[in-house]
């Protein structure tokens, strides 16, 4: 058949089409069956697995951080609080152009190079879809400015958090310490479930020691989240248990009075209640503001603190060990009486110096440096009042280092005072055994002589000094020191009981203690007392003891002249005391570093002001109905 002659055949074409359409229908039906069985497989056979996956997608368990407990002083003044603070966070994965976004943000909100640097470091440690803070502690104005421009910054969010704040800043940092961001080392040791939502942890001071009390218990909530991790609704919630509050013995107004009495001098003032060991004031000057440490201090400021010649970061009250100087003479006299090395009546002739038998070396009495006449005949009481070095050189020599040390141990020297912070050190109460072990040398009798006036190898912390003073004030009881008086959970208060130390001084005759106390009273009140000027015109009776401790050592005939030596090598002035004399309510230890004067002129007036403030305030409280 010729190709051109081929004709259309409608009937054949129709049946051809019908066949093809039928085949198509069958094939399509089969393919629809494939789809249907695929759906059956997913929705019936594998349903359970996909259901689980869907739930895992949407439900997440979020920990909720408990609110940290607050810290109050004895009068209910807030010393550590939680302030709501806004931070700006960036989710890098959601920001199209990070450098440009940061530049744009910097036009609205101040972002320092340090902020950027910290952001960059943190960014590298986090997943791209996790928020990284760029600025914390936004001011109200900054919050408002950003909020009105938020639409321009996808992936940048404002988050409100509670941030620890210390209203007293540098004035209380050495007592309270501070919290800071949890670091890796701390994280490894923590109960990670309880801290899952917590960002900060106590780093120093009370904040560290009472971390478990202040932190509380984390809660959690099961939430449904969408694909952007936004919470859509809460399915189940277990509330966190907030941390408990600390109520301190400390009196913030007394603390401020002590700081102002110290002025711009470096030193320590500690006041305690001798009747229970409660710490009323704990000053280490200079201090520093702990608030920047909470969110992370910038490098420059930290460097400035580190390099400051006044070493503000150094906690002189807990870590500072100083020779106690003459302030320990009352304790030495008491120890001498207890041990029988001296008696109430025994007198010693002071020619202005002391010499060990068979040794030519002269141990100088302080009167020689001042060009004053020697003390002459002195008994124990007079030796304390006049601070006669020769009497105590002799006494120490008579007691011997082993007896002296074992007696002083009972007063808490060379021991921890038990203060409820972790940083306290022991100082050094030297013994023969110590010198052999550490110095690999024998003990020389001359070294005992120096220890007799609180010098030589002997060094103490101011905490030990104040606690030893409290023992004299309260009739011979050694308490452990405590900052915290009560722990409260908002409903009830649980008191932290006063605790006696394991080792107590063994005073056989109260007469010994009375002698020492009377001597200390005369130091402050009698015309011959070394601190009489400081206590002129007081309306109560105080007792105390001055001390001046050498920082550098000098030759035996060298005369020390404070105005001629470098400031850092000048003497430290010390004073211990308590008041009122009959029923003491406050015991104080003061140490002022590198002064021109001595304990009587530099340290005693500070103690006087602290005592005045405390007793006046108490009197006012008592007078009020």
């Amino acid at each position: 058949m010729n190709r051109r002659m081929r004709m259309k055949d409608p009937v054949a074409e129709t049946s051809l089409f019908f066949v093809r359409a039928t085949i198509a229908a069958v094939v399509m039906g089969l393919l629809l069956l494939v789809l249907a069985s695929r759906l059956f497989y997913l929705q019936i056979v594998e349903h359970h697995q996909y259901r689980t996956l869907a739930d895992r997608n949407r439900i997440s368990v979020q920990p909720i951080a408990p609110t940290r407990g607050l810290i109050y002083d004895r009068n209910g003044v807030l010393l550590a609080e939680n302030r709501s603070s806004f931070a700006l966070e960036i989710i890098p994965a959601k920001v199209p152009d990070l450098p440009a976004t940061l530049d744009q943000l910097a036009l609205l909100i101040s972002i320092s190079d340090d902020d950027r640097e910290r952001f960059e470091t943190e960014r590298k440690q986090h997943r791209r879809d996790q928020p990284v803070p760029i600025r914390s502690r936004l001011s109200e104005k900054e919050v408002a400015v950003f909020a009105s421009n938020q639409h321009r910054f996808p992936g940048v969010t404002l988050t409100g958090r509670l941030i620890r704040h210390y209203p007293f800043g540098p004035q209380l940092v050495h007592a309270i310490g501070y919290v800071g961001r949890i670091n890796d080392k701390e994280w490894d040791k923590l109960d990670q479930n309880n801290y899952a939502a917590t960002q900060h942890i106590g780093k120093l001071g009370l904040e560290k020691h009472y971390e478990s009390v202040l932190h509380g218990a984390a809660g959690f909530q099961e939430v449904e989240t969408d694909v952007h991790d936004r919470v859509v609704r809460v399915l189940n919630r277990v509330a966190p248990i907030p941390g408990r509050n600390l109520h301190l013995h400390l009196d913030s107004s007394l603390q401020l009075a002590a700081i102002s009495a110290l002025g711009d001098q470096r030193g320590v003032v500690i006041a305690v209640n001798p009747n229970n060991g409660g710490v009323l004031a704990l000053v280490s000057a200079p201090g520093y503001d702990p608030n920047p440490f909470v969110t992370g201090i910038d490098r420059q400021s930290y460097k400035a603190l580190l390099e400051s010649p006044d070493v503000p970061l150094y906690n002189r009250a807990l870590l500072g060990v100083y020779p106690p100087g003459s302030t320990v003479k009352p304790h030495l006299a008491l120890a001498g009486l207890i041990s029988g090395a001296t008696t109430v009546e025994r007198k010693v002739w002071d020619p202005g110096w002391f010499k060990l038998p068979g040794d030519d070396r002269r141990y100088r009495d302080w009167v020689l440096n001042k060009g004053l006449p020697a003390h002459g005949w002195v008994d124990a009481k007079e030796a304390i009042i006049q601070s006669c070095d020769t009497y105590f050189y002799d006494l120490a020599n008579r007691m011997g280092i082993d007896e002296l040390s074992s007696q002083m141990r009972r007063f808490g020297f060379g021991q921890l005072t038990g203060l409820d912070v972790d940083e306290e050190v022991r100082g050094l109460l030297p013994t023969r055994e110590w010198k052999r072990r550490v110095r690999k040398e024998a003990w020389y009798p001359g070294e005992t002589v120096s220890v007799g006036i609180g010098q030589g190898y002997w060094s103490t912390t101011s905490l030990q000094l104040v606690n030893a003073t409290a023992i004299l004030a309260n009739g011979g009881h050694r308490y452990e020191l405590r900052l915290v008086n009560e722990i409260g959970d908002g409903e009830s208060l649980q008191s932290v009981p006063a605790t006696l130390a394991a080792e107590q001084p063994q005073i056989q005759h109260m007469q010994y203690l009375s002698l020492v106390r009377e001597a200390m009273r005369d130091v402050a009140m009698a015309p011959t007392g070394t601190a009489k000027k400081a206590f002129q015109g007081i309306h109560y009776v105080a007792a105390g003891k001055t001390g001046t401790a050498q920082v550098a050592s000098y030759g035996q005939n060298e005369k020390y002249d404070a105005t001629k030596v470098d400031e850092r090598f000048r003497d430290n002035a010390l004073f211990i005391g308590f008041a009122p004399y009959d029923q003491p309510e406050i015991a104080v230890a003061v140490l002022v570093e590198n002064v021109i004067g001595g304990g009587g002129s530099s340290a005693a007036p500070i103690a006087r002001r602290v005592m005045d403030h405390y007793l006046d305030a108490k009197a006012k409280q008592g007078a009020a109905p």
Partner: protein
Amino acid sequence: MTDFGGRVHTHKERYSLLWRFHIDWMLLSSLLVLMSVALLVVYSAGGYDTMMRQAARFGIGLAALVFVAQLPPRVLKLWAPILFVAGVIMLIIVDVVGVIGKGAQRWLDLGFIRFQPSELMKIAVPMMLAWYFAERPLPPRFSQIAIAGGLILLPVVLIAVQPDLGTSLLIAASGFFVLWLAGLSWKLVTGLVVGAAALAPALWYFYMHDYQKQRVLTLIDPESDPLGAGYHIIQSKIAIGSGGLYGKGYFQGTQSQLEFVPERHTDFIFAVIGEEFGLLGGLLLLGLFAFIILRGLYIANQAQDTFSRLLAGALTLTFFVYVFVNIGMVSGILPVVGVPLPLVSYGGTASVTLLAGFGVLMSVHTHRRLLTS
């Protein structure tokens, strides 16, 4: 009154109002049900505004359907070559602009409207082929098949270089369906299938972009890249699978409502249906599609001339391919290609084109010269 189909409804049909307006009520009602379902699901997946926009597009699409239905098949046949040539020219312009603009280009910006020529070709290509075979005796000769092949390849290549592999393959399929319905010999069908199989590796190495290759690889092992290319498939499978037999309920799909399913109101809308209405809802939807397809085939079979028959048949088969490819992709048995679920996925142009296609079917069905004795 009889015809050789022995149909008894002719009389009724002829005098019904819808018939007068050249509307097939069976097809129209099933399409309306489908579109209502679509609006309900788009509401759940995309919100009220999205649903209203889609409703407006359905309105435009229905207008296009009614308009096209009024044109008798001979008019459509007259326009076929014109539409085809115009479409090819526009595709060339789009490609040239794309080359100049150095980027993927699918749109033609006419100022007041952005027009996608490849969308026009979805109807114009089967129309052109039906036109080509209309007056020729069937089954076609080899030379005619070659010419028809050329007519298919020209727009397919132009669209493929845009690049839009998915659409170009769908258009190739619509052209192929005309050829096949025209009676392409089984030998050649086999040959084409073998040829396509041989072409696949060539496509892989010389044509496909990395992202396209990734989609294929992802299909084989979605977990290999759970946050990247595999994410779509994994999340939509979880959505469907977690729906179970009855589904989680309207607006209750956690995968959909919490935005785990990407593109949930467009290409992946079937995942929302599977999650919220379960296997039951999915099967009912498949049934609805099957009914529409069967009706289309019935209309094609009833057509009185070659042009109408081939065009109606090819359009119906193409509609099926959309359904199959989309649901296959969403349920994880086909690679992720940008094919929407016809008349359900949110999207304007595609809906209008599809409804215009159903207008063609109605025109074919209602303009038959009913034989009188």
